[in-house]
């Protein structure tokens, strides 16, 4: 395997806005978003992205600036939703407004008004079908590393970080309502983050299921 520069090729020179729509829509869908309902606006933003693609080789966000650092710039390749899930869920749209939460009916109304969201935000992380019964999965929501577990039709969200040696709990083993840490077998109750090791409970997050989407509650700006 070769190390080095990231492979940038995704779209060739003949790429059209229709190609971008086709490519991006299913991915955005999995993240809980759809294209803005205002078609003219979508065309305008995607046309800007095509210009950026021609100039740079990738579809960077037209509303954010490239720094030249590949690691930083990877976070502004459209759709950039995974990197700003918490903020965007609060805004109900991505920064540009190209993508809006699926339940938003009038995407035009959201354009332009950008105020930092605060308070409790339910952030879509994946669809119900993406996590089979008895499994646990890591999601990054803003600065939070969260493990989402499924037991039957119930979903639970807890900190992904074991308090013993900071192992990733999402790599652990589910046993009913318990997850066993992958490194040393500490057991956490996924319902309340409790463990029988004193003072070692982990934080939990409220979780809701809206239509077929799993949403994790995050508190912003407090």
């Amino acid at each position, binding site marked *: 395997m070769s190390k080095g520069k990231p492979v940038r090729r995704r779209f060739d020179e003949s790429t059209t806005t229709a190609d971008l729509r086709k490519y991006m829509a299913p991915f955005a869908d999995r993240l809980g978003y759809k294209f803005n309902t205002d078609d003219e606006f979508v065309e305008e933003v995607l046309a800007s992205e095509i210009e950026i693609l021609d100039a740079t080789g990738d579809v960077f966000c037209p509303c954010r600036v490239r720094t030249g650092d590949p690691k930083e710039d990877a976070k502004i390749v459209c759709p950039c939703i995974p990197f700003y899930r918490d903020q965007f869920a609060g805004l109900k749209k991505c920064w540009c407004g190209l993508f809006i939460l699926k339940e938003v009916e009038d995407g035009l109304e959201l354009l332009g008004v950008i*105020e930092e969201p605060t308070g409790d935000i339910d952030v879509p992380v994946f669809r119900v079908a993406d996590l089979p019964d008895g499994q646990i999965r890591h999601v990054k929501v803003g600065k939070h590393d969260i493990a989402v577990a499924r037991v039957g039709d119930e979903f639970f969200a807890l900190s992904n970080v074991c308090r013993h040696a900071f192992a990733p709990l999402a790599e652990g083993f589910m046993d009913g309502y318990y997850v066993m840490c992958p490194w040393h077998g500490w057991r956490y109750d996924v319902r309340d983050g409790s463990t029988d090791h004193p003072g070692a409970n982990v934080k939990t997050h409220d979780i809701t299921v809206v239509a077929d989407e799993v949403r994790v509650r995050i508190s912003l700006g407090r």
Partner: protein
Amino acid sequence: MSVMLYALSTCPYCRMTRKYLEENDVDFDLLEVDLLEGDERTAAIAKVKEISGGSSFPVIVIDDETIVGFNKKRIKELLGL
């Protein structure tokens, strides 16, 4: 009153903001950061980060107040339109 608009040539909200300022006969300075090169670009990105805390556009500075994004209501208030 000084009005400075940091923008990207590719950004729809930057265009909206510019249009809004022009329509209201507001005298403003414009810096299109993505059209800069080399040190000038690096310096402009650093400046925007310093005043807005990020790298999202547009950034409008009205006297010593900073607005990130096309927030018509706040622009209106600060300009007394």
